[in-house]
Every structure is written in structure tokens, then in C-alpha cells.
């Protein structure tokens, strides 16, 4: 097998000042091959965005990181300053969640693109804008972010992420702040750009419908832990972890015309209130006493990993 572009192993992140000795990200493992599209899904507060930032080496200095984050086989955390700096933008590009705050309100789009392109790019600000579907380049380049629509801003952000021809693009919920129609356009755009430029894509989202369109493999996270991972079609068709099944039951699908949605009871706890053992057990219908121990992530069928003592039965399809 070729070296993965990004390989995360035993990754734990703590914020000692805010949450003390609690692992906000706990023992995460994730591989992304060259040109592969991988999704990370979970509810808000599951640590998906944090994982994205950790992978991009952009965590705030208050974060305490243990484990390995390897980029093209080299551990990012043992790299020298120069090498680590070269990774930013050129190795890994990030599309952030909130395009309005992620763009500088005081600079024109042109100035923001130029200062990144100047660092080394195969493209120009104009070409990048055309690539992301903004054809009125003159106007967009002169505009400040607040003069653009939400969809346009998100496209600019994608252009910024792609400006330096990265091998890996991390898209951190790039569609949350957008209208549903624009969401679909942005996802289509990401997919198209990925097919053109062959970068690896880590797509962080809570939206299973978007994930199914985009990612070949999916990792499901709950409360800072990986609960299940495998090929996207498999996971969506036959979820094994009760949390994944719950997410599926709670999501809307027009085609299926289901009468009622089944929400997962409760909510994700703050990291300070994570329970020991399986962190999902207090919301889980299958939970037993042994769930007070931490279930290890173990192989479960071809290409699949699962961390659960009492998974959903294999035969049982989701309702």
C-alpha cells in the first residue's frame, strides 16, 4: 500500500487549563491515502473540527497533543520549524467553517488571494476564482468579504485553500452556514475540484447526506472518540455502532418518505463531563454494565473498525 498522505495514530488532545486531564480527542486513528476522499461525521461538539485543526497543525498553543500526526510518512510534531511552516498551505489547505469570519474583513478578496499566491502557486488569483466558479473575477477581487454572498465567500475560501496546490485539503464543515441549495453546489464543486486536482480530501461534516455523496470512507466520532469507521456505503447501509444507527435514524431523507424521525435522546456532553468507558453509553439503548469499560476500536468485517461491546445486529437493516 502507498504511504498515506495523512496518518493519524493514537492522537490525543487535552486542554489542561480548561478541561484538565480529560482527553478532548481520545486515541484517534485515521488514514487518508493520496487522492482519497474521507469523511469525519458526528454531532456538534464531537471534536470533528478539532481533529481537522489538529491534522492541519493549527491547534492553539494551549492544546496539549500526544500521539502521531504524519504527513506523507513524516511526523509533523518532530519536524523542524521550517518544514512545519512549509506544510501550511502548500502541504495542507484548509476550508474553514464560517467563511465570513475566516476572511479578513479589512482586506479585499484580491489582496488576500495575492498574498497567498505570492508564496508559491501554480495559479493566479483570477484563475483560482474561475476554478471555484466565480466568473465575475474583477468585481470579486475588488470586493471586501462583506460585499459577497455567503456562497461566494465559501468559494473564495476554497480558492484560498487550493491556492498553493496542497496534497491534502481539510474541509471543516464548509457548508454549515449556507442555504441548502448552495450547500449542494459547494459540495459538487469540492468533488469536481478534487477530481481535477487529485488532492486528498478530509471532509468534516454532521450531514450524512452530503457525506454519502462525497466520501469513499467515513469515520464516525462521538465525544472525541472514533466509534466506527469503514467504507461510506457500508456504514450508511449497515451501521454497527448504535450511535451511527441513531444518527441515520435522525436524518431526513426525502426519497424514503419516512413518517417520523427518531432523535437520539440527550446531547453531547461538554468535555469536562465526559463519562468514563464508552462515552455514548448514557444515551445508548444497547448499553450494559460492561460499557463502563472503554471499548477498543477493533476490526469488524472487511475494511471496518468498530468500538462497541453491544453493536447493532448485522442482519438488522436500519428502519
Amino acid at each position, binding site marked *: 500500500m502507498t504511504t498515506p498522505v495523512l496518518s493519524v495514530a493514537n492522537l490525543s488532545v487535552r486542554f489542561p487549563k480548561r478541561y484538565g486531564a480529560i482527553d478532548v480527542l481520545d486515541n484517534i486513528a485515521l488514514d487518508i491515502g493520496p487522492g482519497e476522499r474521507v469523511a469525519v461525521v458526528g454531532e456538534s461538539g464531537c471534536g470533528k473540527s478539532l481533529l481537522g485543526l489538529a491534522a492541519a497543525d493549527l491547534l492553539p498553543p494551549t492544546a496539549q497533543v500526544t500521539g502521531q500526526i504524519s504527513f506523507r510518512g513524516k511526523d509533523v510534531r518532530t519536524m523542524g520549524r521550517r518544514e512545519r511552516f512549509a506544510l501550511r498551505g502548500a502541504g495542507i489547505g484548509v476550508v474553514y467553517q464560517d467563511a465570513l469570519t475566516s476572511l479578513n474583513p479589512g482586506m479585499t478578496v484580491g489582496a488576500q488571494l495575492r498574498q497567498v499566491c505570492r508564496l508559491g502557486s501554480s495559479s493566479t488569483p483570477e484563475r483560482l476564482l474561475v476554478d471555484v466558479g466565480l466568473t465575475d473575477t474583477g468585481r470579486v477581487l475588488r470586493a471586501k468579504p462583506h*460585499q459577497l454572498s455567503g456562497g461566494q465567500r465559501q468559494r473564495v475560501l476554497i480558492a484560498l485553500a487550493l491556492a498553493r496546490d496542497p496534497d491534502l485539503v481539510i474541509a471543516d464543515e464548509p457548508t454549515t452556514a449556507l442555504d441548502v441549495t448552495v450547500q449542494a453546489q459547494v459540495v459538487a464543486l469540492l468533488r469536481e475540484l478534487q477530481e481535477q486536482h487529485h488532492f486528498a480530501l478530509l471532509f468534516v461534516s454532521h450531514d450524512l447526506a452530503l457525506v454519502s455523496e462525497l466520501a469513499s470512507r467515513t469515520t464516525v466520532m462521538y465525544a472525541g472518540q472514533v466509534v466506527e469507521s469503514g467504507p461510506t456505503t457500508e456504514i450508511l447501509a449497515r451501521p454497527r455502532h448504535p450511535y451511527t444507527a441513531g444518527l441515520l435514524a435522525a436524518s431526513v431523507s426525502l426519497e424514503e418518505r419516512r413518517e417520523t424521525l427518531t432523535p437520539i435522546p440527550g446531547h453531547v456532553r461538554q468535555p469536562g463531563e465526559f463519562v468514563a468507558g464508552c462515552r455514548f453509553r448514557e444515551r445508548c439503548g444497547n448499553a450494559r454494565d460492561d460499557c463502563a469499560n472503554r471499548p477498543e476500536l477493533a476490526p469488524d468485517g472487511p475494511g471496518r473498525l468498530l468500538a462497541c461491546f453491544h453493536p447493532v445486529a448485522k442482519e438488522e437493516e436500519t428502519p
Partner: protein
Amino acid sequence: MTTAAAPVAPARRGPQGVHIGRFILRRLLLAPVILLGVALAVFVVIDLSPNDPARAALGLFADAQSRAAFAAENGLDDPLLVRFVRFLGDLVRFDLGDSVVRPESVGHLVGMALPLTVQLLVLATVLAVALSLVLGIVAARTEGRWPDRAISTVAAVFQSAPQFWIGLLFIQLFAVGLGVLPSGGYQPPSAGFSFWFSSIVGPAIVLALPFAAAMTRVVRASVADELAKDYVRTAVGAGVPWRAVLLRNVLRNALITPVTVLGVHVGALMSGAILVETVFNLPGMGSLLITGVNQGDLGVVRGVAIVGAVAFVVVNLLVDLAYLALNPRSAEAAR
């Protein structure tokens, strides 16, 4: 080439240009109105003062008859409104009237004193801005660590210390103790740069210190706020070097608040100049005002007050325009 065509948002550039033009026009039209109000206030307040110009001109022991004659001669008996209109008329012709004590006209006295005060204020502002930018940025970058704490503590001390006291300590240290600067007096630039500079740098530093202290705290808070924003992460994540992130991306946004504070502090700086000129014995506007008050020379007091008020209004207009340049959206908000 992409299947997903961009949604076309209406062009919003045009209306914003209109906002900015309208904003500037309104400020420019408003300035004369403010000045008229200021002139009226200055005139009325000084008119209400118990000082009698006749007594100031003719001496303490002048009799009532000669005082009345003096008043009639100078139109002091006319109704307030008539005198105000006359004062305005003179003002428009840049005539500030006569000093009743000294042989020179008020315009001439102000013309002599103003350059010194302007030099003092400009130098103090430059020093304060430079100092507060450097210290504020250093403090923001080391937030919570010792350089930040040291800078914040020193800033708090200087912000709360009375200016005359700082002035006296300064003279004690640099003039009396070290003997590197003169203890007072003014040398015009024609006397040579080093003489001029050493005569004015001390007062300028004393004037700048409390101002710099206040500004440092504002710059620190503002830069720290700005550094925590998402777009900084975007720039850093794209590989933009730190120096460029700070200077080209952050500073422009971070300066919006300090520029506003600068405008507010100009008034304090001007009244500080009165004190500092007195402490350092400099013949500027402040000294002119103090002697004017002491001698009951209402013409001089009025002249200094009017010039000071005009300068304040003009500086604030400039600050507003600088604010607008930094933050074009304020034009829309100020509609």
C-alpha cells in the same frame, strides 16, 4: 467549466461609494455648524466672567467715569448678540481683536505662541503613537506572560500619575540630576536642530507619557482581540509568515479602536500642554492662556480658546476620516 455556477449577488459596490461620499460631505458641512456653536459658547462663557476689561486696561484704580468711557469706546455696552456678531465678523477675517494689556493684537500673540504648541503636540503624539504601537503589540503577543504584565503595570502607573508630577520628576532627573536636558525655556528651530530638539523633547515626552500609557492599553486589547480572530488562522494556515500576518492583515483592523481613542485624547493632550508649558516655562498657547487669565485679558483668553476649539474640531474631523479609511463600513452604519 464548473457545473456549479456561482449564485449572482447584486453588486453592492456602488451604494457603498455613495455612503462614503455622503458621510464625508456631512462631516464637512457639520464642521462649520460645530464651530459656530463653539464660538458662541466661548464668547458667552468668557462674557460671564467677572473680569472687567476696562479695569484690566486702565488699572485697578481707574474711576467709574473713565471705565464707562472705555466701555463705550470699545462697544462693551452693546447687547450680547451685537457683540457676538461683531466678534464673528472679525473672526471670519482672522481678526481675534486686541489685547487690552499688551500692545500686540491677539492674532499676533497667538501667531507667536502657536508654532511652539503645535510642535509640542505633534511631537508628543508621534512619540505616544510609536511607543504605544510597539509596546501594545509586544504585550498582545505575550498576553498573560511577563512582558505583557510588565508593560501593563507600567502603563497603569503612568496613566494614573498626575502630569505635573511626572513633569517635575522628569526635570529633577534629566535636568537637575543628569544635566542632559535644559530644565525649561524654548529654543526655536532657527537656533539649530539640537538646541531646538533638546528644548522640546523633554516637555513632549512628559506630555506623551500618560497618553502613550492609555494608548498602549487600548492597542494591546485591540491587537489581542484581533489576533484571536478566525481570519488570522486562515492566513497562518495558508503559510503567510507571522510578520506579514501581523503588519498587513491584523494591524489595519486592530487600529480602528485606537484611532477613535486618539481622537478622544486630543482634547486631553491639549489641556495637558497648558500644564506642561507652565512646568517647563515654554512660551506657547498654554502660557499665553495662563497669563491672559491672570491679567484679566479677556481678548487673549477668548483668542486662545477659539483657536484651541477650532484645532480640536479639525483634528477630530481628520480622525473621523482616518477611521473611515480604516473601516469603510462605518459610513453605512453612520447613516
